[in-house]
């Protein structure tokens, strides 16, 4: 395999790997549910994206024609991951999970739970 191709794949894999690792560490280390929700999204978007593009480059190089499967997988991931996060957040709101004290605009959580528009007076 061409050195430059190998280098490209390696870099992409490293980027992907680092983001998945960071996402996983974040999932353990972050203090409350809402912040923890951020971590896996990094892993699924940039992390998985990097790995998948690496796979795409390698397969294209090996097979001699453009491999597009991975793009499709990325597409599915990019569509579904935000919805998963959205549903998780909704569940957390419904369960009245406490947010960190220093989280801003906490009063909006109540409105979101009740599915009401925010009251104009609440703007700070």
């Amino acid at each position: 395999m061409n050195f430059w191709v190998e280098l490209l794949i390696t870099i992409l894999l490293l980027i992907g790997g680092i983001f998945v690792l960071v996402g996983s560490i974040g999932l353990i280390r972050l203090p409350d549910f809402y912040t923890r929700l951020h971590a896996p999204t990094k892993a699924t978007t940039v992390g998985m994206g990097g790995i998948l593009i690496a796979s795409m480059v390698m397969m294209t190089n090996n097979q001699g024609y453009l491999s597009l499967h991975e793009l499709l997988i990325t597409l599915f991931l990019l569509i579904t991951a935000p919805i998963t996060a959205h549903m998780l957040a909704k569940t957390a709101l419904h369960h009245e999970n406490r947010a960190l004290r220093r989280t801003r605009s906490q009063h909006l959580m109540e409105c979101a739970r009740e599915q009401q528009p925010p009251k104009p007076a609440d703007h700070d």
Partner: protein
Amino acid sequence: MSLFWIPLLPLLGTLVPLLSERFGRSACALFTAILPAIALAIVLNLSLEVLQGNTLLQSFSWIPAMGLDLSFRLDGLALLFCILILGIGLLVILYARYYLSQQDSMSRFYAYLILFMTAMVGIVTSNNMIQLWLFWELTSISSFLLISFWNHKSDARKGARMALTVTGAGGLALLAGLLLIAQIVGSYDLDVVLASGDTLREHAAYPIALVLVLLGAFTKSAQFPFHFWLPHAMAAPTPVSAYLHSATMVKAGIFLMARFYPVLSGTELWFLIVSLTGLATLLLGAYIALFKHDLKGLLAYSTVSHLGLITLLLGMDTQLAAVAAVFHIINHATFKASLFMAAGIIDHESGSRDMRKLNGLWKYMPYTATLAMVAAASMAGVPLLNGFLSKEMFFAETLHQVALGSLSWMVPVLATLGGVFSVAYSTRFIHDVFFNGEPIDLPKTPHEPPRYMRIPVEVLVALCLLVGIFPGFIVGDLLASASSAVLAGNLPEYSLSIWHGFNLPLVMSLIAMLGGLVIYYNRRHLFQFQAQFPETDAKLVFERLIQSLVAGATEAHKVFENGSLQRYMVLLLLFALVLTAGPLMDLNTTAGLRPHLPIDAVEITAAVLLCLSALATMIWHRKRMIALLTLSVVGLIVSIAFARFSAPDLALTQLSVEVVTVILLMLALFFLPQKTPKESSPRRVVRDLGIAAIIGGIIGTINYALMTRPLTSISDFFLANSKTGGGGTNVVNVILVDFRGFDTLGEITVLGIAALGIFKLIARMRLFMPAGDENGRPWARDRHPVMLAVISQSLLPLALLVSVYIFLRGHNLPGGGFIAGLVTSVALVQQYVAHGVDWIKERLKIDYQWLIASGVLIAALTGLGSWVFERPFLTSWFDYFHLPWIGEFELASAMIFDLGVYLTVVGATLLILANLGKLTTSHRPTQPESE
């Protein structure tokens, strides 16, 4: 070919009444009679050859590997019975046309009747013992249906059940007996069996075989002590009694004894059992018949008595006795069938069968009365009627008895006593019904029946007279032919004339006549004497017996099946332990010779994760959501393992099944109690842990031992032939749709049936629906979040595209109908989750039952399609084509088969999930089901 048609025509005739019912009652009866009439014509056509002493044989290979043939024979005995069955059957069809009321389903009655006729003809013409037994059981079943024809009546149902139990149990004994005979002789073929009488009689197992076969015959022919079911079978419509319980079915046992007479008789044991049973039945039946006030009850016990007489004749030590038995079979069938029909007419036209009410009917129906009196006289054995002739032969034979040694003189005396009672009840039948004053408050004013209802009786009574006056001319040949079949060709000298001179049998007849009249004249004293005995209803005794049996079985059953899943698991696992532990101890070394594959870090990590998540599932099994999550981790790792060890098809399947399973479990958990109580005591936990550990160890050992040994399987064959034979490079898929396509067809059928079963179970189910989770928090009000709904909807075409892709490439690359079906199902279930049932209902108008049915149908038709090209079922076809722009591609018939698989999987999955999900919505049944 013609022999084969004799039972086949009535079999086809079973459908005729069902198809012709719409043309009216008379047309239905007419059409029904056509096929049996043709069968009778065939029999009569063949009879010329049979009467010359030939035995016609015809056989087709059925299951040659097991020695089973479809084999038919027509000898004298079979000929006689065929004429009786088909001839009287035709008369009964005519009779039933006028007997059945408008409310009775005529087609159903005729269908059962013709089915029974088929079974009887099958018994008498079978040349293979297993085939004979099959028809034998069919008579039990069809007679059950006929006796319980008026199934709204309790005694009809009870009587039918009793008849089925007794004759069915006898049938099982018969099967055992026949199998034993086949073991001894070495063939199921009746020809071979009939030719090896000596081998059989000298074999050590002969007594067992004899007793088993006789048990079958005695239960069927209502011999003492199994006679009790016959009177209770009288709850059947009278045509049934006339046909089954006088002429045919009860004669099946007699036929069996006659059929096996050449091989089973001739020993001390046979004579003792058969003659004593016959004698006891003869006396008991004749005695009880006198006291029955019910017309049909009297006839039923008289039938029992006459069957006993025939059995006694078969049990006697002379060849002439066998001739007399055959002769009495003919005579009894004619006079008893006509008597039953006459009783039916009386019941039909006067509304009662009680002889205490029926009196003086001579004035109202003189014609019927004359017919009935002639038949009853024949039953009593009056000269110039057929009953007299066979009774004379019977009396003559009793005089030659030596089997009982010095007690042999009792046989003629007891036979005469039976004759006395026979005359007495015949006299009662005539005098009580037709004379003896005026009728006492009958429901109807009696009158003559319709013209055609009398015809069957007239025909039979005419036969009684003709046989009685010209015996040699009418039945001489038939009797000789049938008797020589019973006696295996050794026909003795006998004469069929009416007058044999003044001899001892004639004196016995005269004594019977006079004695019978005297007893009837003094009947009041006898009735008073009989009234002292408490009456036991055999029906009640029988029911009590059956109920206690059922209760006992239920008790025994409860010990094993008490509803505790834990107990079932323990029993199953302990049993598995017992079965596997022994062989494993015999295994010297666990490890085989096959070298280990190298292990890398990824595999170790996955294995550790697998173990940990399995353990976690176990530890948190009472926290259901967590347990479900850890369980799905197990599933994911298993599918990764499949992918790792080169089984991409399995990995894909496992993955999609995992998704469906988790959704299914979530739905199921929703309905279960939110909190799981702690059910096991600490002691039980320790016990269960122990059992689980041992079983786990054993399964692990087996796996390890298997995987470390070289295994020769047929995978190499599949790998080599997949491309050339099945046209696909994906061996897994080629196995599924081609090599083992028949298995797959069976599997999708089972899948469809299972889905329909589950659908049926949950269709009307009303479950408790919790209003909130286990912490009392109510469910979120936003049932179908907008974001989820929109994205799911836009994902649907993509997901469907993926499933089409997986389906199409399945033949050559990982995929196929099964996985594609699961992917489609998941995509559709996703829509249910996101949008709810209402939304889907408006947009997706697919009936999932139809989807399953069409899937199975498509797969089956693909299989049948290969017959068009004269290939075996499910032969696959494939070829390569070239189209511009697309390039070369392959078309295979297996793809259509795979489409069937696909449709069935989609239908089954959605039928289950969608309907289970429906229970959580407003579509759930709310009204309690009306009783």
